[in-house]
């Protein structure tokens, strides 16, 4: 019972929505749209569970004065501040909520994103070593593309920009296609195994 009900649900819904794809009629569209809306509604409840998890995790730290519990307090107060700002002050362009978003949250998001620039450099420096034939190919191709994108490349050799573009469009395309085939087949097979209940690890301990 504990396992069979969820497995039956997955089977019925799975089969239904494979078939639904091929049926354009009105009832079929209604079923699809309803399911989509219900799935969104379910997400709201899952969010509550997630919130419960994070509140517990951090309040425990604070209560037990465990480790650096002060930061947990920062975390929870920031979350509370943002949520209250949104619910009380509204979310219009001039609201406090939007100010917090624009001048606190968003700058940190873009800074975190910009850190990638540093990590590109450190990853390239550390990993692009001509240890093996494959690693050498990786390195040379990155080299050519980087040169092709800047004026220096064209100064060294006029064809560099075209070559770098070609590398992106031809060999890169071929390898991505090959990988995508595997992903597509694997995804079809895994979805099928989930629907048939062969892949049932998601049931956990039940």
């Amino acid at each position, binding site marked *: 019972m504990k396992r069979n009900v969820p497995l039956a649900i997955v089977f019925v819904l799975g089969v239904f929505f494979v078939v639904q794809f091929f049926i354009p009629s009105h009832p079929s569209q209604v079923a699809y749209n309803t399911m989509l809306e219900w799935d969104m509604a379910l997400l709201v409840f899952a969010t509550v569970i997630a919130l419960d998890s994070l509140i517990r995790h951090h309040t425990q730290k604070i209560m037990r004065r465990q480790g650096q519990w002060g930061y947990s307090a920062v975390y929870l107060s920031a979350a509370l501040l943002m949520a209250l700002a949104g619910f009380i002050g509204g979310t219009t362009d001039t609201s406090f909520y939007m100010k917090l978003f624009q001048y606190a949250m968003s700058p940190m998001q873009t800074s975190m994103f910009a850190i990638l620039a540093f990590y590109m450099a*450190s990853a390239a420096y550390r990993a692009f070593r001509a240890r093996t034939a494959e690693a050498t190919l990786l390195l040379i191709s990155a080299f050519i593309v980087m040169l092709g994108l800047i004026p220096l490349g*064209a100064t060294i050799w006029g064809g560099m920009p075209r070559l770098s573009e070609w590398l992106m469009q031809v060999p890169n395309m071929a390898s991505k296609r090959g990988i995508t085939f595997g992903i597509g087949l694997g995804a079809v097979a895994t979805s099928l195994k989930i629907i048939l209940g062969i892949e049932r690890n998601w049931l956990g301990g039940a």
Partner: protein
Amino acid sequence: MMKFLSKLNRMDRRIVFLLVTVVILIPLLLNIQSRLYVDKATHDLFNRIDAIQPGGQPILISFDYDPQVAPELDPMAVAVLRHCFAKGIKVIGMGLQPQGDAIGEAIISRISKEYNKKSGTDYCYFGYRPGGYIVMLYIGENVKKALPQDYYGVSYDSLPMMKGIHNYDDIPLVLSLAGSTWPNTWIMFAGTRYKASIADGCTAVMAPEYYPFLQTGQLVGQMAGMKGAAEYEQLIVDAGYTKSKDIASKAMSAISYSHILIILLIVMGNIGYFVTRRMENK
């Protein structure tokens, strides 16, 4: 010497970070610029605009982008507007992306002030026009229908510059500045159907999408990413329309130096690696 070289194998990553900061900041702060190799597509666009009679028919610039891609596309708009205003070419501005509305206005009014150009006689800005391809079709039939009044609420008939502008036949070039696939739509609905000349300014990431159209001539020119903007800045300086290059050229130098830095880091890393390996083998 060997010892020093082998140290290159394991440099502290913080040194790498410091070097990145330096090569990015110096060109930005000290205004260091390098000469660019100008791509053919950018050159084509420049020549197109440069061939237009001063005081004659206007070009249409469509601000089809959102703030997220503004760092790449704003400098393009600025450079092209400077070119037009310096030469006395009239400009029609509009946009198909709601958030591009204010961006276009800010740029066009700033640059027009630099050249003392007047709204209504030297340029007209119509702001965001909802409807996407429908707007393009309307322009092909009757510009007045597509752009009934400008951004500031002045009606079409009260804009002296728009007198005699009926459809694409009277607009020698349409330039779409876009972060997404708007140029594609322009090609389909204004280019193919009404034989309008279309050019685009796009982000570096989107550029490869448009190479086929450049090849077939469906796009008469293109600025691709920060590099395209920097190339255009260089072209207008070379032609004597402006005195100094602008933000895109600085950013492009920073990008160039950072690429060179990464290439050098890889080379140093490999030297260090081979030296270390040789020392270990001995």
